[in-house]
C-alpha cells in the first residue's frame, strides 16, 4: 500500500517489461496532453544526476549485488521524487513517469530481494492516480528488443543472476520472472492493464480514454498567458518543455 496523492497535480505512470511498448505510449500521451494545453512534466527511470557516476561505475565493473542495485536505484528515484516529481504535483502539473517504484518491486524481487523490504524502501512514494501496465507475452517483447539491437547489456539481461550462460536465454528467463511479479501487482496496486500486443493506435486510444476520465473531474493547471514577445523572440513556458534530465 502506498499513500494517496494529496496534491492538486496528477501522477500518471507506465510500467511493463522491456519491449512492452510503454515508452512509445507515454510519449504519445505526453504529446497529446501538451497539444491540449496541459502542463506536463516527464520523468524517466534511472536518470538523476546524483547517482549517475556511481551507477556507471557499478555497471562497468559489475559491482552490484541485488541489494546495492536496489538501494542505488531507490536513491535515484528519491532524488527525482524530491527535486522534480513532488514539487510538480504540488504545483498542479501532470507528471508522467516512464517506470515507477513498481519497476523496483518487480525487478528487484526477480533478483531475489525481499518483497516487503523493497516496498519499505519506497514507502515515501505516492500511489499514482493512474498506473498503466502494458502486458505482452514474453516472446513478443524479446523479439522487439532483439530486433535492431547489437547486443543485450549485462544487467539488462539479468546475467548477474547466473540463470544461463547465454544472454538471450538469461534475458528471457529474467523477463519472465519480472512479468510474474507485475502480474501479482495488478490487483495490489490497481493497475490499468493494456494489451501491449495490440496495435499502437488501439492502445493509445484506450490510454487517452482512461486519462480523459481522470481529467473530467479535475481542473488542470492552465498555461499562463505569456507577455507579448518582442519581435524575433519567442517566450516559452519551461514547464511545458520535455525534460529527459
Amino acid at each position, binding site marked *: 500500500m502506498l499513500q494517496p496523492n494529496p496534491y492538486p497535480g496528477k501522477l500518471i505512470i507506465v510500467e511493463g517489461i522491456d519491449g512492452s511498448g510503454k515508452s512509445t505510449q507515454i510519449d504519445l500521451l505526453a504529446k497529446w496532453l501538451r497539444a491540449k494545453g496541459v502542463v506536463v512534466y516527464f520523468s524517466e527511470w534511472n536518470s538523476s544526476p546524483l547517482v549517475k557516476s556511481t551507477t556507471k561505475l557499478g555497471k562497468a565493473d559489475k*559491482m552490484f549485488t541485488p541489494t546495492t542495485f536496489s538501494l542505488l536505484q531507490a536513491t535515484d528515484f528519491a532524488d527525482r521524487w524530491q527535486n522534480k516529481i513532488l514539487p510538480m504535483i504540488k504545483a498542479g502539473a501532470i507528471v508522467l513517469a516512464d517506470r515507477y517504484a513498481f519497476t523496483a518491486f518487480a525487478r528487484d524481487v526477480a533478483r531475489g530481494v525481499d518483497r516487503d523490504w523493497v516496498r519499505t524502501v519506497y514507502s515515501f512514494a505516492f500511489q499514482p492516480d493512474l498506473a498503466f501496465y502494458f502486458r505482452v507475452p514474453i516472446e513478443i517483447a524479446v523479439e522487439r528488443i532483439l530486433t535492431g539491437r547489437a547486443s543485450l547489456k549485462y544487467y539488462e539481461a539479468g546475467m548477474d543472476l547466473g540463470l544461463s550462460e547465454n544472454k538471450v536465454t538469461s534475458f528471457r528467463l529474467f523477463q519472465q520472472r519480472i512479468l510474474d511479479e507485475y502480474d501479482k501487482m495488478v490487483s495490489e496496486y490497481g493497475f490499468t492493464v493494456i494489451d501491449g500486443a495490440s496495435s499502437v493506435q488501439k492502445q493509445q486510444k484506450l490510454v487517452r480514454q482512461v486519462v480523459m476520465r481522470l481529467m473530467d473531474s479535475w481542473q488542470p493547471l492552465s498555461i499562463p498567458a505569456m507577455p507579448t514577445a518582442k519581435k524575433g523572440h519567442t517566450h516559452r513556458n519551461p514547464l511545458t518543455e520535455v525534460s529527459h534530465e
Partner: protein
Amino acid sequence: MSNPKFYGAGFPYRTIKEVPGTLIVLEGTDGVGRSTQVDLLRTWLEDEGFAVSDTGLKRSPLCEPGLEAAKNGHTLSPLTMSLFYATDFADRLENQIIPALKAGFLVLSDRYFYSIIARDIVRGADPERARQVYGFALKPDIVLYLRTDITTLTTRMILGGGFDHWESGMDIHCADNLYDSFRLYQTQVMEQLDGMATEYGFTTIDASRSIHEVFEDLRRAIKPLLPRIR
C-alpha cells in the same frame, strides 16, 4: 558467529550458513575517539595473531566517489543521503564484511547502521521505516558504544581543527552558526543512540576518560569473544 542472524530478511538470494569470524562494532558520535581506538585495537589483535579487517562508513568502492562528490556539492537531501548511505553500507557488508567473516577474520567496524539511522531520524526519517531498511544487516557479536558528554565532544572538535558542515547538521539548519548547530545536532544524535543502547544491547563505555583507560575497557569487553588458541 556460528549461526549468523539478521535484523530482518537479510539477503534472501544468498546462503550464509557459517561465518567463523567475529564482528566487533564501535559506535558513537562524531569526535568521540572511535578511529583512534580502532587503530589501537587492530594493533593489539594483530599482535595476538588474529587476522583483522576494518571498515567504516562511506568506504565502499562502489559509493565512496559518488557520495563524496554529493556531499561536497551539498546536493544531498535527508532522504537521498539516507538511501545513498544504505547503499554504501550494503556494499561493504556483502562485499567486505561477510567475506572477511567467512574467512575467519575479526572485523572491526568503525560504526554500523545504528549511527546512520540515528542521523536519519534526527533529520526527520520515520524511526520504524529507518530500521526496516536495514533488515539486511547482520547482527554483530558485540557493539561497543563510546559515549561522552557534549562539552567534551565540542572541546575535542576544537582541538581537532574545528567543525564540519555535515557533522554539525548545518544541512538541516539546526542553528545559524556551526558551534551551536554542532551542539544541538550531536545532542540529538546521542539521544537516539542512547535509546538504541537497550534496544540493540550495546555495551556502553565512558569515553570521556583517557585513551588508555577507554582502550583497557574495550579490551576487557572483547577478550571473552576471541577464539581460544589451543
